């Protein structure tokens, strides 16, 4: 198996899907000749031409809205939002339209669009190039939100998203793009949207997280292993709708749960994870459900001092794991 970076997995998934299905096309800002500001679509313009790799005007509501129209027509658009932060002008199209098209038409129409966007911080992106935006969308039936952590998951889940009959938001951690590498099968495979994945088996405490934090948690778990603390790690992969079954059994397994997100604490997707546990396996718990998250300030500052203070790190996770294990 080849070792790919996270972003190479994105690129490969799109390329293979475009080869497989002529209905698949890409649209977004600078996705064509430039290959995207992060190079996620590099080489696709050369390979498939400007008709299927469309540099759009600078207008996110149109990127989403035109994609939605094309999806209703029967195409399989992959719309790129240059940064997750800039998905906000498209919220009305995504929530009022994409998420409701099947339901409102009583199954007569559907909207198989994928909207990709790089999210997350730790890259000196400051307030508007660092945000986690999933919580804004993670309350909208009709929508699915995928946030993979590894190149393997990226490829399999992005392919699944492109083939999905319904709209999928696909958030990619921009710090993971080049930092995270992993083995990826050359051939075609899909992974199930809506299923969490155990990234590490353990006995003492359960950590539930997603995205880049999965890697931070794995790092922390290795450290704790040396101290004799065994960590069970569940990677949500899909943050909406949640894989309740997997959450319940991961929580019940150790009875001590730490939820980690890079997003602000109040109102994050981890609140829902906590609520699911509190509703379903309260009596299996030996400790309060802990959440480790960013402080409740609007977004990540630019200055390195404040950015580090805001950002989740392996060290912060390690400390929280220890505290929980000792509870």
């Amino acid at each position, binding site marked *: 198996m080849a070792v790919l970076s996270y972003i190479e997995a994105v690129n490969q998934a799109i390329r293979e899907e475009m080869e497989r299905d002529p209905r698949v*096309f890409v649209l977004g800002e600078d996705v064509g000749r430039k290959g995207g500001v992060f190079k996620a679509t590099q080489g696709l313009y050369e390979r498939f031409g400007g*008709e*299927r790799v*469309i540099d*759009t*005007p600078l*207008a996110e*509501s*149109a990127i*989403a*809205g*035109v*994609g*939605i*129209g*094309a*999806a*209703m*027509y*029967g*195409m399989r*658009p992959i719309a790129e939002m240059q940064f997750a932060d800039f998905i906000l*002008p498209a919220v*009305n*199209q995504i929530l*009022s*339209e994409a998420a*409701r*098209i*099947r*339901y*409102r*038409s*009583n*199954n*007569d*129409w*559907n909207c198989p669009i994928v909207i990709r966007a790089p999210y997350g911080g730790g890259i000196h992106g400051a307030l508007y190039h660092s945000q986690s935006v999933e919580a804004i969308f993670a309350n909208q*039936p*009709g929508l*699915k939100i995928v946030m993979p952590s590894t190149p393997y998951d990226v490829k399999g889940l992005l392919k699944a998203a492109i083939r*999905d*009959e*319904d709209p999928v938001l696909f958030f990619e951690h921009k710090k993971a793009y080049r930092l995270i590498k992993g083995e990826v099968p050359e051939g075609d495979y899909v992974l199930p949207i809506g299923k969490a994945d155990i990234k590490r088996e353990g006995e003492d405490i359960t950590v539930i997280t997603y995205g880049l934090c999965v890697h931070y948690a794995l790092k922390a778990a290795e450290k704790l292993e040396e101290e004799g603390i065994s960590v069970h790690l569940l990677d949500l992969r899909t943050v909406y709708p949640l894989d309740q079954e997997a959450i319940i059994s991961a929580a019940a397994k150790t009875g001590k749960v730490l939820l980690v997100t890079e997003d602000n604490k109040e109102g994050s997707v981890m609140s829902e994870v906590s609520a699911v546990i509190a509703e379903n396996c309260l009596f299996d718990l030996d400790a309060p459900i802990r959440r480790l998250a960013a402080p409740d300030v609007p977004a990540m500052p630019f200055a390195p001092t404040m950015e580090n203070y805001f950002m989740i790190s392996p060290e912060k996770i390690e400390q929280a794991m220890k505290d929980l294990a000792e509870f």
Partner: protein
Amino acid sequence: MNKSRHEKLGLSDKQVLDMYETMLLARKLDERMWLLNRAGKIPFVISCQGHEAAQIGAAYALDKERDYILPYYRDMGVVLVFGMTPEELMLSAYAKADDPNSGGRQMPGHFGQRKNRIVTGSSPVSTQIPHAAGIALGAKLEGKNSVAFVTLGDGSTNQGDFHEGANFAAVHKLPVIIMVENNKYAISTPAEKQFACKNLSDRAVGYGMWGVTVDGTDPLAVYEAVRQAAMRARDGEGPSLVETVLHRITAHSSDDDDRSYRTRDEIEQARAMDPIASFRKYLFENGVLDERKDQEITDRVMKTVNNATEYAEKAPYAKPEDALKHVYYE
């Protein structure tokens, strides 16, 4: 002898009579819905009254076999031409299970019917403009020569999505026709508080598209403009902006009382410029219609309206638990 206007446009007597009958059908269905609403039988009406000429004139200029339409809530006339039946419209008014638009999930006026290429719509205005560009893009990518015809009200042209959608369509020279039904009100807000340009088609130049303003009470004028836009679209000349100027004869909707913001006089004036009356006059003057034929048409229309009402009234609602269906692909 001089050719009549419709003949010059290549429309036969039969075709204009058909247009007239469809206009009348839209009107009578609409009037019935108001009665049903006032009788407490249906919760909501939003009217096409005063817009019929623009709607039916435009729809006749399209290709019903391959074009896509993205109508807004007043467009009963447009969807009638594209194949939605009076029964189906009444099912929607009654929110019954067999409503093809939404199975009774959406308010009336939220059209959608895939088999007739009527693209599903929502309430937030103007989101359909980018959709039309997307539909046209899809057709273009597939090499189909379909046009996407999308409508909206004058107030709705001030939404960001109008701008973004129009611009996208223009940059990519997509076969899109954007038709504004300018009734000079957005609910209670008059045109001068909505925009400061003279004609809304003045916006076309800013997108580099073709634009025109026509009398929206004249179905032939609208037919001509939309036909030209459709020809341009099919010839690869890109999108057009067609403004039709007309009058809203009713209040904004059954929830609105327009006496708080329109004078009696103004309402009377709007009524006096009834597009159905003026088209009838035209047909009489051109010897296409006479009293007998007109009565025949009216009788047929009223029978259709009655049957549709009866049918829809008796039809069942969706089951309560049907609310759970169709969130995702099943």
